[in-house]
């Protein structure tokens, strides 16, 4: 290694890989992955989230899973936590997931059409 900058570059890259173990703040994407969710197609949704976040090298984003939220009919459901705010998306497809990453996570614009509010209307 010939410079500090090189080390810094490695560090930045590497931190992404381990932030799960240290991150307390940031964005949490919680995918409902109980039997109901999986049956409704939660797996490809989650994979889409993982791939997209990876591709965009987003920092401070944690993807996690959870059990049954209780509204099985709305699965696949995903909750995005950011600070105090919680947005619940429902009936997602992989396509939606990529959109949520692009709009919500990157640009801070909630993908209104996928939220539980929009669906319930």
């Amino acid at each position, binding site marked *: *290694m*010939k*410079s*500090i900058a090189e*080390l810094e570059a*490695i*560090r930045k*890259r*590497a*931190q*992404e*890989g*381990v932030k*799960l*173990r*240290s*991150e307390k703040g940031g964005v*949490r994407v919680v*995918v*409902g*992955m*109980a*039997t109901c969710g*999986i049956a409704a197609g939660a*797996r490809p949704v*989650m*994979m889409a*989230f*993982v791939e997209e*976040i*990876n591709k965009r090298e987003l920092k401070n984003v*944690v*993807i*996690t*899973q*959870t*059990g049954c939220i209780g509204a099985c009919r709305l699965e696949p459901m995903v909750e995005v936590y950011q600070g105090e705010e919680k947005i619940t998306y429902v009936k997602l497809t992989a396509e939606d997931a990529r959109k949520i990453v692009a709009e919500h996570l990157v640009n801070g614009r909630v993908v209104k059409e996928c939220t539980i509010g929009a669906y319930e209307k």
Partner: protein
Amino acid sequence: MDLYRSHVLVCGGTGCASSESGRIIDNFNELLIEHGLDKEVKIVKTGCFGLCEAGPVVVVYPEGAFYSMIKVSDVPTIVEEHLLKGRIVTDLLYKDHTTSETMNSIDEVGFYKKQRRVALRNCGVINPESIEEYIAFDGYQALGNVLTEMSPNQVIDIVKRSGLRGRGGGGFPTGTKWEFTQKAVGDLKYVACNADEGDPGAFMDRSVLEGDPHAIVEAMAIAGYAVGASKGFVYVRAEYPIAVKRLQIAIDQAKENGLLGEDIFGTGFNFDMEIRLGAGAFVCGEETALIASIEGKRGMPRVRPPFPAVKGIFDKPTLLNNVETFANIPQIILKGAEWFASIGTEKSKGTKVFALAGKINNTGLLEIPMGTTLREAIYDVGGGIPNGKAFKAVQTGGPSGGCIPAEYLDTPIDYDNLIALGSMMGSGGMIVLDEDNCMVDVARFFLDFTEEESCGKCTPCREGTKRMHELLDKIVDGKGTMDDVAKLETLAKTIKGASLCGLGQTAPNPVLSTLKYFRHEYEAHVLDHKCPAGVCSALLQYLVVPDLCKKCGICAAKCPVNCISGVKGKEVYLIDQDKCIKCGACMDACPFKAIKKG
């Protein structure tokens, strides 16, 4: 590095590895593939988490779920429930001994609450075989800062001001040692790391090497820069295969990344290191013996001066620190001398890792700030004594440490307090003894070790430990006299005063400290022919309590040496003490609890 949604950290320390953590990892990998989770869940083999009592340990992030005592058969449950469905498997979570509460997250576990992890900070957190993970947790940044921004003198100044003292036992101020080595004249200098952890039961050095080997590589390079050395040796005992393997991987990775070798960070500084394997002699932890062993000679201490800082490996100035000492260095550089000095007591700064064992609930490795009291360590972190037994003493400092009785439990732990109590810090062994331990037997146990491990060079240690051991044997066998006790004490003092190296000078500590605090137990053995704790078999008697005896004769039937006589249904049974071999079969057999040990 790919992004995963979940990390499963499995302890790959020696303790957990011996309880099949390797197979657990394999099983996880198989099941992840089976369930198609291998792209989203990552299995990480880490170093020791410290709470070995609870091993094998598995922690699942991002939740931090702390699973303990995991068996291979538990793996499918964790995969199917937690990883697939997001349901934490409560049954497998660690339960606190004191509260019996189930702990969801590792952060909530009482064992960790009072700890402050500096030396062990990455153990159980990173994959020790990945330099990227180490770098992610600020690895090699200290080395970078040192090489690009600091002069060797500034580095030494920081280490001095931090107040760090040698963690191998001596407690010599580390910065001063660095300064001596820097000032010593020599065409070549060496940095050496003492990883010859010889105290039975102590494994903090092993844990660091297994869990965070890059920290040692980084620290040694920093030390090399500070003292003017370009070559480092790590002396590891061959009994630590995992540590050796991971350290070698770390060295290789550091070389590949240009963090060892020539012109590091483009600064012109060169540093290389290699591992030297030791054969596991206790005495090789003594610095001059260790140096002799690195040189390929018999591991035997030599007289000092000259100190290694002046004449060390191959007669060249050598800086020798132990693993835990080095593990603190990168943190001190990154966070500053003041930060480190703010932890601990006036004369003992920072944290210290202890290997807690014996009659204690949370057997394992703990890192606590200096100045934590013995009581806090034993009760708050260690979870207290199991089975409601009474605390008797804590033995610190390894086999040549001393036993500290209950009245000193509130002593803050630091180098000087422990010495004042007739014990020592040593490398951080901490063995808790309860009412069932006989202190004479404990002293004999440690003498058994030091006698065997004496290098044989100087008379007091070689001959004296043998005779102390023999005198203790005599006392334990009920054949001792008060003359023997007196002789034992004089002999112990001679050995302490006249031996060549630290091993001999401290070998009598178990005897001297037990004589100081538990003399009544010696007297009981000699004068009353009794072992108060009921440990010393020669002094035990099995007696039939006549009032309770139902004259059934079962005891006589069970006795393997036919030393119980009586007439079934008519006469109370009687044990012939001369013939009795104290096997206890009669007591176990008696349905009426009419046989007592005393």
